[in-house]
């Protein structure tokens, strides 16, 4: 698995992404952004910002940083930021498994529809916890394993990587959470079509004094 493959897959995707998927996943994005419970002045990181569909749900008074691996998705996000005059948003091309941010920098971190399309979901969650302050909110929304074939195929459609590159479509929530005990889960809520997607809201309960080195 290399980053070039990921970029290529999303290059094909960038132009149609909003048209195809915004309606289905809109509510989940709105709900997730709200669960960050942002306060004015908060520094918020969105991991996998993609074309920027979640950006309108963040308050203007917060400083938003969005990262993504796909240059083409980010270009779309950048166009949205410019055309909407979102002066509080920056986007950067970066690998979510090896973020270049210091420890404890962000007040809250969000990842919408990302966890199942990365090679190592636990690594991404640990990186999210590393760059987030202790006590900060970490929210992610994702589809976790279910028996409904319609939904499973829809999820595969959303993530070209999972189809082409064999990424996880069978991610289970409980085993995942058990590997990040420092995330204190506050709420798990079903959302979108038939509630087959889950929003997880947690508080970062890491030991802020410990050296958090994440090695994946």
């Amino acid at each position, binding site marked *: 698995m290399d980053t070039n493959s990921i970029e290529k897959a999303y290059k094909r995707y960038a132009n149609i992404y909003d048209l195809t998927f915004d309606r289905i996943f809109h509510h989940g994005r709105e709900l997730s952004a709200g669960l960050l419970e942002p306060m004015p002045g908060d520094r918020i990181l969105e991991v996998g910002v993609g074309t920027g569909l979640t950006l309108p749900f963040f308050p203007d008074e917060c*400083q938003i940083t969005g990262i993504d691996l796909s240059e083409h998705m980010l270009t779309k996000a950048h166009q949205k930021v410019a055309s909407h005059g979102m002066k509080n948003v920056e986007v*950067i091309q970066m690998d979510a498994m090896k973020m270049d*941010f210091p420890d404890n920098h962000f007040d809250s971190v969000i990842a919408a529809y990302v966890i199942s399309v990365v090679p190592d979901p636990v690594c991404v969650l640990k990186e999210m916890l590393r760059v987030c302050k202790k006590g900060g909110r970490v929210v992610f929304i994702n589809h976790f394993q279910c028996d409904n074939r319609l939904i499973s195929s829809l999820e595969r459609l959303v993530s070209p990587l999972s189809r082409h590159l064999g990424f996880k479509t069978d991610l289970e929530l409980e085993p995942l959470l058990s590997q990040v005990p420092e995330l204190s889960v506050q709420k798990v809520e079903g959302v979108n079509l038939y509630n087959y997607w889950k929003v997880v809201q947690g508080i970062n309960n890491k030991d802020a004094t410990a050296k958090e080195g994440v090695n994946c």
Partner: protein
Amino acid sequence: MALDKELLDILACPKCKGEVKLTEEGDGLTCEACKLKYPIKDGIPVMLIDEAEELG
């Protein structure tokens, strides 16, 4: 969209985690230790080692 100064301050070289500096032309972020330049394409900093250019 100019890069936010605070963001520049917190960005680190993905390779050595050291400091990166904005080029005079504003077209990239350089790491002196690794002799690498991370390009800024259309206002988006590309903080990927694979995409970095070697400094002469």
